[in-house]
């Protein structure tokens, strides 16, 4: 690019810019983040049942150690995450889908299956998906170790876990 000559007109004056490298031109942008909440499964029998969901994540953000991972989490894990973030990060953490106390009333008093009802599980799944996507996309949340543990560790080991920050690698 030639330089503009000195007696340029005001209307066509501008700042010189740095040319970008070929890699930067064509590389996929480093802002790719997709999290899906899928495959709800109910485990156990009778009173001791619980439902968990698959959290599948694909990303190319540098801050995440794994670019693809898949873990299983239950509602209480989400609650734990929310609590950690509220305490440690400065963001206003969005709310989770409701706890659904009504549905947890003993089975013989309800006509349907309570929290193991398919419709309800689907509703909850959508809500959880919205929640995790909003949270994981926030730069300040990305600095919290609790988020990385939640998304990328196979199980959340509450004994070993120590709250802290994660820096960009």
């Amino acid at each position, binding site marked *: *690019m*030639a330089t*503009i000559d000195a007696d*340029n*007109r*005001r*209307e*066509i004056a*501008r700042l010189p*810019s740095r040319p970008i490298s*070929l*890699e930067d*031109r*064509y590389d*996929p*942008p*480093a*802002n*790719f*983040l*997709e999290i899906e909440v899928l495959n709800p499964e109910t485990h156990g029998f009778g009173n001791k049942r619980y439902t968990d969901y698959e959290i599948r994540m*694909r990303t190319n*953000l540098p801050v995440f150690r794994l670019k693809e991972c898949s873990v299983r989490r239950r509602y209480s894990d989400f609650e734990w995450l929310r609590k950690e973030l509220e305490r440690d990060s400065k963001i206003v953490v969005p709310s989770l889908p409701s706890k659904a106390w009504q549905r947890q009333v003993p089975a013989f008093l309800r006509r349907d299956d309570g929290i193991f009802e398919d419709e309800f599980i689907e509703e909850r799944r959508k809500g959880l998906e919205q929640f995790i*996507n*909003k949270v994981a*996309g926030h*730069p300040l949340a990305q600095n919290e170790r609790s988020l990385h543990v939640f998304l990328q560790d196979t199980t959340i080991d509450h004994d070993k876990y120590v709250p802290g920050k994660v820096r960009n690698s």
Partner: protein
Amino acid sequence: MSMQKAVDNSRSSNAGLSMDNQEKLLADALQNVRQHAFAMKRVLDQQSVMEGLKHAANMLGELRTSLLSPKNYYELHVVVVEELHHLELYLTDEFEHGRGSHDLYEVVQYAGNIVPRLYLLITIGHVYIRANELPRREVLRDLVEMCRGVQHPLRGLFLRNYLLQCVKSLLPDTEEENQEATKTGTILDSLDFILLNFSEMNKLWVRMQYQGHTRDLQRREQERRELRILVGTNLVRLSELECVNVERYKTIVLPKIMEQVVSCRDSIAQEYLMECIIQVFPDEYHLNTLNEFLKACRELSASVNIRNILISLIDRLTAYSTRDGSQQNIPENIQLFDIFSEQIAEVVKSRINMPPEDIVALQSALLNLSLKCYRDQFEYGNKVLENTRKIFDNIALDTQVQTGTPAAKELVKMLKIPIDCYDILDVLKLNHYKLVLQLLSYRERHTVCMYIINSILDKETIIPTAEQVTQLFELLLTLIIDQTDSPLETSRQTITNEDFVEEQNLVARLYNNFQAPNDPDQQYHIIKICQDTFKNGGLERMRFTYPPIIMQAYALTFRYKNIREQDEKWEKKCQKLFQLCNQLINTLTKLETNDLPLRLYLQGALAASEIGSENAETIAYEFFSQAYTLYEEQAGDTRAQSASLTLLIGTLEKVTCFAEENHSTLRQSLTQAATRLVKRPDQVRTLLLCTHLFWSAQRLNESTQKSEQVHDNEKVLACLKKATKLTTQIMDQSVQVQLYNELLNTYIYFFNQNLPDIDITLLNSLIEKLQNEMSKISSNENDEFIRNQIQKTFDYLRQQSQLEKFQGLQINN
């Protein structure tokens, strides 16, 4: 560095996606556009430019949307640009009348949002350059760089496309700078402009790949393909600049384009842009940059379909080199074949997963090139064929390419190329052709063989030597003898199988093209080779393939007779030919139809008789008696028998080489055979035919060595009387009357021949008889025919009654 817009991306693209939603959005946008445009036009009519610009900016605001699909955005864009044109016309008009405002270029930069700002800037810039308000070079540079402000792929692409369209006529296309104060720029500035615009557009286009959720990838890729012409237009514009010559193309244009194409590593972009380069720039340029182009091809990303690109280039250059019928368009120093041959080998080596059909397609294009550009140098074509065979040998030695696979289809296509380009005699010079043919399975070999034969027949190529015939048969072996890999081989070989019949008929027809025009001995060799080849084909094939050989052999005897002055051995050669035919026909008798061998024997007898060589009589007699034996074997089939007997009689009437002894034996046998036929009408008719054997048939007079007619009155009469007697014994009235008519006709013939004892009285009595009998037949349709026949006889007689000969004829209506 990156902006975390991931969430917004998915949300916004999901929102507008449903079809109805899109339609409504587009409709709303269009309506807004029209409203603003209308307002703009109204205030422009009142000469208020500022107000006009304001409305224009509002209108352009509709192009800021993220919600429309590319197709719909395009529709919106078209309408907006159309309306913007009004503004441009107005301003141009103002300048022409000296009323133009001079500060608009600055003023529009105060527009609040970047998309309207840049569209207006481009429009004004266009007007100002034309009106010489601002220097062209600087403004163009400015515009192309300012467009960087829109980084959204879809909006950016359309904006830059608008820029390109606007400056179409403004790009400087001169070698040198002009001398005036305001520099207009040179071709180099134009190149800079377009190449920059191109690289930015390519960047945006590739970026589209990553926008949105992975589940929408297919749709996004389809949308990208729909927009490719926007990027391609830059290349088109480059090709339209006149000052771009081979040198500039090679040093500036192509390297810059290639840099972008190779480094973007996006297969959609690479496939399209490489193809675009080939199509858009002249062949001359390609010829001079082959190495660079092909090097870039090797560096393309692995999923690009390189086969189509290379084939496109090869085909184009092949067409270029043979344009106007000459092969001179390619300069001496560019060895097209070698270059491509090497490059293809490199490409194949570097892409290990290239499917075999792609490799074959590349070889096919190369073969096409070598056959068209190096027509008389068979070694090129041969080399390609050899390489192809090697490739498959490396993959799996001694295995056939499975039938129906894409690789098999490509191989068939490849093998058809030489057949189309050359005639078969030249194809036979490609001695590696058969190597590739052997790779194929039965079905494909069959297809190729049929194609070859059809081509020979269509082009009417004559194959003059035995050696070439042998080579041709090597290729066509699939059709000639049983193949180990053909399904249902024996069951398909019946005359009810149409395909089999068609195929063998073609092979047989081929025979007519084997002609050694001036060399009968060569022709004899050809016949021998055919016999040797066809005898291995099985009886069912021989049904089709032997008859032509036999007929050609007979024809050859005539040729030998014609040159008997020059060739003293001609009679021996004819003898050999007849012996050969005897052998062949004998084989054919094993087939169920006796008709064919019988006819062939009779034909042979005739031929021998015509030739008149020293043992023609022996040969003819042998053939005749063989035919007679076949006749006797038809005992069960009355219709066939009477037809065969008719043939025998007819042939004997024409054969002139029998001496009296042989001739009388045959005459008597045939006459007796006539009376032994089962059905009366057949007896009568055949007897009538036999009369000619005693009259006009010729036998050889041994003392004069000339043939003379038999003219045996007594026997003729005897036959006639016998025939008459038999006719009276027929019960079916209509048939009887018909036969009486036929009898009468024969008598008339002999009357005309002046046979003694046939006089007018005899005729009269017959006429009377016939007239009496006529009343007995009914008047239905079949008998209508008989009546007509009889009428014709009577008409003839009436005509003849004027002549002196027919004095005393009694015939009334």
